[in-house]
């Protein structure tokens, strides 16, 4: 059988200013262009520099604990109706995939000679990872976090402060991730000479979508090797949750050329797409420009961003990375919504069947696997990116399940 994607290049390469087809680019104030150009150049130079790459690989191994394991989840698989394997990004130092990207960007910050980093954070995982790398590499660190999220993820606020970072609660707009990004951008325009913006996902202006992908693709590079060794064949489906899309791109990239492997991104469906209260940018949005790139976006008829809704702070974002929009439009990846309730069911199921408490973000991918398993049957294999652990979500989950002490 010839597959429609047989002609795809091995990896998807954006053009020189970061366009993936009609998406991506650099919709930024001119004041940031020089810094973004410098960053792009430094990124390409370090990608070609064996010493930089060895230093990063060493950190990923000795500091983060890579490679992360691949775990067969037998009892969960019985319920799913197919064989499910988890790529265990929850076991990374700091508890999620975010550290992979941050170590790369923090090393790059040192390379370009800047002394201060800023970051946005939703769930707090990217903020914690950035604060961690800043402590390790002696960088000053300020993290912007929506006030609503500082409440939902109080544990991570405390972690960041313990690590020596300044956490700034953002009180504008919806007081969630999108507003934290706005505030971080304002800081960056003002302090760009001393400050590098360590962006947490594959959205934003070029070079971030490309750069963050390249720092995250280690997830899929490892997983592809691990699953071939373990099972002797490629999975039928690779599933990951999609907020901005970094863990998903991270695990998808190695499999993009394997046209027989379905790539499925699970977006936050909130109360359900038809209620309008969700964070499913691709399933429920239209293309537009937000935070420096063109991509699918939740927006109204005036072009105003619509506030997203999700039980998961890390997925509660009205935009998505441009490469996902492109993968969707060319049909190489599929995107589906998972409601809060479906995600929390999967959260409970994994906790009870496998002794693994997932991040609520990652529970969306697990819920996707539960649906996909029924579709592909018992001979099928689903690789799920377990992007993070659920410690930060214990309070939210206890309230949700009514088991708070």
């Amino acid at each position, binding site marked *: 059988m010839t597959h429609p994607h047989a002609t795809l290049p091995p990896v998807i390469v954006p053009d020189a200013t970061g366009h993936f087809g009609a998406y991506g680019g650099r919709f930024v*104030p001119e*004041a940031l262009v*020089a810094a973004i150009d410098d960053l792009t150049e430094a990124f390409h130079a370090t990608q070609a520099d064996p010493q930089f790459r060895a230093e990063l690989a060493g950190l990923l191994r000795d500091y983060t604990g890579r490679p992360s394991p691949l775990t067969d989840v037998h009892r969960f698989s019985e319920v799913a109706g197919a064989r499910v394997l988890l790529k265990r990004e929850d076991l990374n130092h700091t508890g999620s995939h975010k550290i992979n990207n941050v170590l790369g960007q923090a090393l790059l910050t040192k390379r370009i000679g800047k002394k201060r980093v800023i970051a946005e954070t939703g769930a707090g995982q990217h903020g914690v990872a950035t604060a961690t790398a800043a402590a390790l590499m002696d960088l000053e660190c300020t993290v912007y976090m929506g006030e609503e999220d500082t409440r939902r993820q109080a544990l991570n606020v405390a972690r960041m402060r313990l690590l020596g970072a300044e956490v700034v609660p953002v009180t504008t707009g919806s007081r969630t991730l999108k507003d934290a990004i706005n505030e971080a*951008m304002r800081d960056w*325009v003002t302090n760009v000479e001393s400050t590098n913006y360590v962006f947490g996902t594959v959205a934003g202006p070029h070079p971030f979508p490309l750069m963050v992908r390249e720092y995250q693709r280690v997830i899929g590079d490892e997983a592809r090797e691990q699953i071939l060794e373990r099972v002797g064949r490629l999975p039928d489906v690779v599933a990951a949750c999609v907020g901005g899309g970094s863990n998903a791109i991270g695990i998808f990239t190695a499999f993009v050329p394997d046209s027989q492997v379905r790539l499925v991104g699970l977006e936050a469906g909130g109360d359900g797409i038809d209620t309008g209260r969700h964070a499913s940018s691709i399933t429920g949005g239209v293309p537009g420009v*937000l935070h420096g790139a063109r991509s699918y976006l939740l927006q109204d008829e*005036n*072009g105003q961003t619509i506030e997203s809704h999700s039980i998961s702070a890390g997925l509660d974002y009205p935009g998505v990375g441009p490469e996902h929009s492109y993968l969707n439009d060319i049909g190489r990846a599929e995107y589906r919504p998972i409601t809060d309730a479906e995600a929390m069911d999967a959260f409970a199921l994994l906790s009870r069947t496998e002794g693994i408490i997932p991040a609520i973000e990652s529970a969306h991918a697990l819920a996707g696997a539960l649906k996909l398993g029924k579709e592909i049957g018992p001979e099928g294999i689903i690789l799920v990116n377990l992007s993070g652990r659920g410690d930060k979500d214990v309070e939210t989950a206890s309230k949700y399940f009514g088991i708070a002490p």
Partner: protein
Amino acid sequence: MTALGDTLAKAKADGRAALIGYLPVGYPSVQVSIDGMLAMVAGGCDIIEIGVPYSDPVMDGPTIQAAAEPAVQAGVGIADALRAVTAVSEAGAAAVIMSYWNPIDRYGVARFAADLAAAGGSGVITPDLIPDEAGDWLAAADEHGLDRVFLVAPSSTDARIVSTAAASRGFVYAAAVMGVTGARESVSSAARELVARFRALAPEMPVCVGLGVSTGAQAGEIAAFADGVIVGSAFVRRLLDSPDAAGVAAAGDLARELAAGIRS
């Protein structure tokens, strides 16, 4: 429709810089914001920058955010901005739209350009659209004879100043400081240096300076080296302090103070 270049040339012939005042449409209401703009024209503004309120204004500080947010909530959009354009141009000033890119993108670039020209608008200032991404807009502006104002900043390289000036028509907006909109105590030396660099690289193109200007004295300082002085947050502040006829009058008073400043 007035070409911005003609307005700037006329001010120059009078031996002064032009005064450019900004207000977002829709705060506290569409009508009161238009009244404010008309008071600014009466007070001496040559050009009015009509802001389209946007949910994610990353180039704006707290003052403009505070006015834009309720306008966004109230559903104010391009159609209201076009109403303001007509009112301002009928009052004899040049009307230029200042908008983040997504509201225009959503409205449709070609449709927007046609409607703006029909409403009597001169052009558009695009704070988050650089010429590199502006292909559709450059074409639409050419088709409808609209000016397009791109920005340069103290961080802009010489090469980018040259390419930005080449893509612009009307004038180029020089950001006086690295940062977001909002009143500042003093005029930075960065503004003067940027304008000097700009003039050496693009001597034919007018350059107007904004970000942080709030008093007649500051306007006078900038008028000495730029083709135009752009004032935003200080006008918005008048309406935030008094979102009614008194605020409208205060905006007019500020325009008079600034107009005197650029002539001193």
